[in-house]
């Protein structure tokens, strides 16, 4: 499709397990963002990739969170040793280099049991 694609749409896992969330940005968009949205809340910035520059990781809440972007396109957000407070919707957005607006995917709803 033409939009940002995220997978899986839902993920349920046990506390302590690792999870990987995937984001396929809009073709040609060099900027990619990850946000987290807790129930009934606004979006919280996690990490930002722009072209070949070093990512801005200033929003990652702990060292259990990491993300990579391969080939300047697909990105994976990894959460290690998941905790119940990690339960949230993880949203990915992309945009043209140095431009707005950001276009969002529908997110991955992560539930930690």
């Amino acid at each position: 499709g033409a939009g940002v694609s995220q997978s899986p749409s839902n993920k349920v896992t046990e506390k302590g397990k690792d999870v990987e969330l995937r984001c396929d940005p809009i073709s040609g968009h060099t900027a990619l963002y990850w946000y987290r949205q807790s129930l009934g809340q606004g979006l919280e910035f996690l990490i930002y990739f722009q072209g070949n520059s070093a990512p801005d990781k200033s929003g990652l809440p702990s060292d259990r969170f990491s993300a990579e972007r391969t080939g300047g396109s697909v990105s994976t957000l990894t959460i290690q040793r998941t905790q119940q407070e990690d339960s949230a919707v993880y949203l990915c957005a992309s945009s043209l280099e140095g431009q707005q607006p950001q276009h969002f995917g529908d997110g991955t709803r992560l539930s930690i049991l």
Partner: protein
Amino acid sequence: GESVGLHLPTLSVQEGDNSIINCAYSNSASDYFIWYKQESGKGPQFIIDIRSNMDKRQGQRVTVLLNKTVKHLSLQIAATQPGDSAVYFCAENIYTRQLTFGSGTQLTVLP
């Protein structure tokens, strides 16, 4: 830290009436503002944006007003329709990097 906030968490309007959703921001250095609409189970959908060198911008049935003096942003929806029911977020941006979001306003359109 500085953040974007919303005046009202919920707003109910009659179908056909105009809606006004307000937002306050605190970072005077922000140069870009944006409104998103989020329906249940979906990601935020871009509605309209405005740069800090403008006071007003109009789209289809929507208008965004920016008052930099009092750091206030509003979204006006004309002739509100049932399909407009959703959560609306404002967000601010500096130098085209990450967006800082407010907590959202739930708009309910009454028949």
